[in-house]
Every structure is written in C-alpha cells, then in structure tokens.
C-alpha cells in the first residue's frame, strides 16, 4: 500500500476510473500537459490521451454546461474548476440544470457528472483562491456535495462521486493537498457518499467538522484528551445529503456540540446541523450549540488570512464554553 498525499490520492482515483471506465472524461483549465495548477491531474493526459483528458478554453459556465450535455449522453464527465472562487458562474448550470435534469425529465435523462474544485483558505494565495462554497451547494436540491479530509477518504469518495448516477460536487481542501500522507490502497474501492466518519470516539463533547478544518478539530481533540476531556470527532464528509443520524447519536451521548467550518457563519452548513440539533436533538443538549466558523466577511488577503480561519484556540475556547455551561 502506497503512502499518498491527498493530491496523490485524487490523482490515483482519477487514473483508476479513467482506466476502468471508458465513459470517464476529464476536462478543465490547464489540466492537460500542465497537470492542473496543483498537479492533481499530473500525467493523466499523457497516459490516457488528449481525447480523455482535455484542456478546456477559459470559460467556467461552459465547462459546467458541457459537463451536463456529456452526462446526459451517458459519459461520466469529471470537470475541474481551477479554484472555487471561479465557480460562481457555474451556479446557473448547477442549480437550474445539473441538479434538475433527472427530475425535469422524470428520469429520462440524468446527469452523472462530477465537478471538482479546490476549496478553502490557508495557502496564502491571491484573492478568490480560498473560498468555501459548500453551503450554497448544500442548499441546492438535486446535488450531492462531498469534501474529504484525508487521502484515503479523498480516494474512496472521489471514486464514489464518479460512479454516482447523479451530479456530485467534490470540494478538495487545498490546504491539505500536500500536508498529510497516509497509506491508501489503490484498489478501486469506493467509500459511501452520504455517510459521516467518526474519526475519534469520545463522551464529553461532539466536535463536528469537514474539509481542512478537520485538521484543527483533531488537534483540538488531542489537546482536550491531554486535559482529560474526551471529544468525539465527526468528519461530516458529505455535506449533502447530510448524515444527521450520526451527529444526533453522538450528541445524544455527549450532550454538547461544537461545529467547526471555514465558510462564513450565516446560513453555513453549520447552521443546518445546529438547526437539526435544535429540533430533533433538543433534548440531548446540555449546552448551547457552538459554531466556530469563518466570520461573515470575505476571506481576507494573505496577510490576515490566518486570523479568519477557525484555529485550535478558538475551538478549544468554544469547548470550554459549552463545558462550563
């Protein structure tokens, strides 16, 4: 079993599907010879040819639109948007078409496409290069939305996304691309979409997160353990559909919940989780639900970027508050 970065894992999953399904086609800006600006598609054009791995003209609306046309024809298009900040012009296609094609035609046509894009801050790139768009997407009926937080989950979830018969938005945490390595069996085995992963069991507080913030969440849990506080850590992984049963079961056990995400707070996915806790989970709650999130401001430019992102300290402070309650 090779030890892979998250980027390697994505490359391996794409290669696996290209090798095993002729209907899989990759396209996006600079993904061919250049292998993508992060090199997620490195070597794939060389290996699978220019008909299967294509450099698209610089037009995101068109990239999404054409994915829909291909998918309706039974291909399995996997398109890349170079950075999430440039995906807003795809929203019309995602909301009005990709998410609705099956519904609109009563199943006559469908849209098994994947849209991959790097998300999240912390790499000190220029403006618009660190956006966290998951809430907009999770609010869109008909989409599935996934964000992995480890190489192995990236591999398995990306395979699942490509094989899924419906449109899946695959959000890759840029900050994790090269940060961690772990052994990943490149065996074509997918992980289920729509299921959260409990990364650490605990009984005092439930910490819920996804994407890059899982890192700080795990670090916080580690520090809490040193203080004798037992935190359960859930990686939501699927933002849509959302695996509330796993979260509710955990909070039923711990009575306390801190949700951590980078995206702006208002109407973020954290709000949806907290809202469910306020309805189905109310009687479990021993303390207010805390959200440790990005502020309701744009992600600042590089110099202040780290001040915006949920830090271990902010997570610990929130845990402190819910425990002191």
């Amino acid at each position, binding site marked *: 079993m090779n030890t892979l970065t998250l980027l390697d894992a994505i490359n391996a999953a794409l290669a696996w599907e290209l090798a095993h399904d002729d209907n899989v086609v990759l396209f996006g800006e600079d993904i061919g010879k250049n292998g993508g600006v992060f090199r997620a598609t490195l070597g794939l054009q060389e290996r699978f040819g220019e008909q299967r791995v294509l450099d698209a003209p610089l037009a995101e609306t*068109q990239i999404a639109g*054409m994915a829909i*046309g291909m998918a*309706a024809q039974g291909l399995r298009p996997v398109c890349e948007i170079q950075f999430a900040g440039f995906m807003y012009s795809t929203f019309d296609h995602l909301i009005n078409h990709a998410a609705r094609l*099956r519904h*609109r035609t*009563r199943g006559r046509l469908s849209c098994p496409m994947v849209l991959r894009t790097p998300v999240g801050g912390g790499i000190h790139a220029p403006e618009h290069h660190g956006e966290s768009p998951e809430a907009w997407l999770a609010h869109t009926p008909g989409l*599935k939305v996934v964000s992995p937080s480890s190489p192995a989950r990236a591999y398995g979830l990306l395979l699942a996304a490509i094989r899924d018969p*419906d449109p899946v938005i695959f959000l890759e945490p840029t900050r994790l691309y090269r940060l961690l390595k772990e052994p990943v069996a490149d065996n074509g085995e997918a992980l289920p979409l729509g299921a959260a992963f409990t990364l650490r069991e605990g009984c005092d507080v439930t910490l819920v997160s996804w994407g890059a913030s899982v890192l700080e969440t795990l670090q916080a849990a580690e520090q809490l353990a040193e203080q004798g506080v037992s935190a359960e850590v859930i990686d939501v992984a699927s933002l849509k559909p959302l695996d509330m049963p796993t979260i509710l079961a955990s909070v039923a056990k711990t009575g306390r919940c801190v949700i951590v995400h980078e995206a702006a707070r208002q109407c973020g996915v954290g709000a949806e989780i907290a809202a469910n806790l306020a309805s189905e989970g109310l009687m479990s709650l021993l303390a207010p639900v805390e959200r440790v999130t990005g502020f309701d401001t744009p992600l600042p430019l590089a110099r202040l970027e780290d001040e915006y992102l949920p830090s271990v300290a902010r997570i610990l402070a929130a845990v402190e508050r819910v425990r002191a309650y």
Partner: protein
Amino acid sequence: MIPIAEFRVPYTRFLDAHGHLASPPPDFQPHDLLPVYRAMALTRAFDAKAVALQRTGQLRTYPSSLGQEAVTVGLASVMRAEDVLLPTYRETGAMLWRGVRMQELLLYWSGDERGSDFAGPREDFPIAVPIASQCGHAVGVGFAFQYRRQPRVAVVTLGDGATSKGDFYEAMNTAGAWRLPVVFVVTNNQWAISLPARKQTAAATFAQKAIAAGIPGEQCDGNDILAVRDCIGRALERARVGDGPSLIECVTYRLSDHTTADDARRYRAQDEVSAAWALEPLARLRHFLVDQKLWSKQDEETLLADNQAAVSAAAADYLATPPQALSTLFDYLYAELPADLAAQRQQLLTERGQA
C-alpha cells in the same frame, strides 16, 4: 492599415414572398416539401389550440410559434432521427416533427413534468427555459458524439435575444476550438419580449456573431423553407463529416404575443405586424406548392380538417390524463432517494392522507 482578416456573411433565399422560386437549391425535389408543409400547418393548428386552451383556463402560460413554422419544421426536417435537438420553448414544430407527442407538449405547458418525458426522441433535451443555457449542453452532447466517433449532430436553437447571453459565445467558442458537431440555429424573430432585435445589439446580423468563434455563420430567410433546409442542411453535413460547428441565423417574425401572458400591442406597432404577415412562411410555401401543381384547394381543406381533428384528439387525451402522484415531488430527484428526503416524502404523504 493592412487587413489581417476578412469575412463575409452569406445570405440565402430561394422562395420570394409570393412563393416564387428564382433558382432551386441543389438536388431539390419539390414533392419533398409536402410532409414539411403538412407539419407546418399542423404546428400552426396546434399553436392555435394551445392558445385557445390557455384562454379558457385549461393550460398555463403558452408561447406560440406563429409565423416561425418554416424555421422549426425546416430544421427538424433536415436532421436525422439520431441527431439530438436542444430546443427553446418556441420549437413546437421541431419537436412535433421529431416525434414528441402533442399531448406531451400540452402536459408540459400545463405544468406537468411528464411532458418532458418524451416517448419519442429519447435523447433530445427538454425545453430550456433559462435563455441560452442549452448552448452549453449542446457542446457537451456534440463532444459525446465526437468522442464515440458517431456521425451525429447536436442542434441547438436560440432566439435573437438569447444571443446577448455569454453562454452562447462560450459555447460557440468551445465548439469551434474543439471542432465539435454542433449546429447553432438563431431564430431571429425580431423581438425578445418587448426588445426589438436592433436594440439587442449593434451587430447588423446575428450570423456574424459566428466570426467571434471562428466558425461559419450564415443568414437565411427564415420564412423560406427552402433556404432554411438548405442552410441548416449544409451545416449539418459539415458537422457530420467532422468539419465542426456552424451558426445559422433564420430571419423570421414573431407574429404572436411573446406568450399568452404578454400583450405585444403595448410595445410594437400593429402595422409592423401586418407587414410581417405578408411574409409569413406557410402561405408562401402553399403558393409554391400550388404553382407546382402539388397542392390543391381540396388538399388544403382536407389538411385543415385532419389537423383540427388531430389537435382536438390530443387535447382530449391531455385533458383526460390523470394527475401525477404527489410522491413525484421526490421520486425523480436522485436515482436513489437519500434518507433525509425519504423522510420529507413520507411527511408530505402523511399530511395529505396518502400514506
């Protein structure tokens, strides 16, 4: 200043406004036009019926294609069954030609999703309401054909107004860069709701927009069925043999209101409409067919009666269609219903006493 590039936008017309044929297109067989004429007349009858149904509260908002029958039927009549059409809401003639049933269209315009589940051309796209968005899809469909080396073409239609949307240019440009089998048909009916084409753009023709993408662009008289079939036919052929996409502008006129929810008298002069009636495609083709002795008054009467009967039968079928089940709010959203949605579905059915 040396010109570094030069372009011409060709114009095609064969039949003049009186149905007089100056010189025919290559390989022209006048009797080929009989089924085309019938389909155009049926389209007109269907439009009238749909508007009548709407006026009597039996249909929702409906966009008539009155006056545009040569474009819609013309383009479909030169396509092959295995080609794929990506239509706007005003392509009734094309959809009927390709096998969509009248009942399905009525269902759709009554607000019933089953209307887009055509029994007929299973791979054709449903009607696109968001203007020009279908252009992007067409490029994807064209890509799939090229990828599989199938000699098929994606035909996408859009209006004069739609040419102002970026989607259209992005699609043409990508189709051009990748030399994909896509034909873009711009139906210039001179109005986009209340905005006349001359205010939509400073471009003298819509055909010249193809130059931006480096692909062929031609204009034709969209009320001349011969011109429409010739231009689009050639574009289809180019696409089919691997010569890439084209844009064909068909100049016609929207004789009706924008939709039944619109009152065009608010914004356009009646004499413009009257003048346009003199150019309309159905009478023009009839004159030609009559001149050619291919059509008689008797034929016409029979046709009108047949069309009336067909349209009424379709309306009756449509009106007799039982409603969709409540659960269909959920049933087609995903291949497999996620658990959270299953709960919402159950909630609705329970509330409405259906579970």
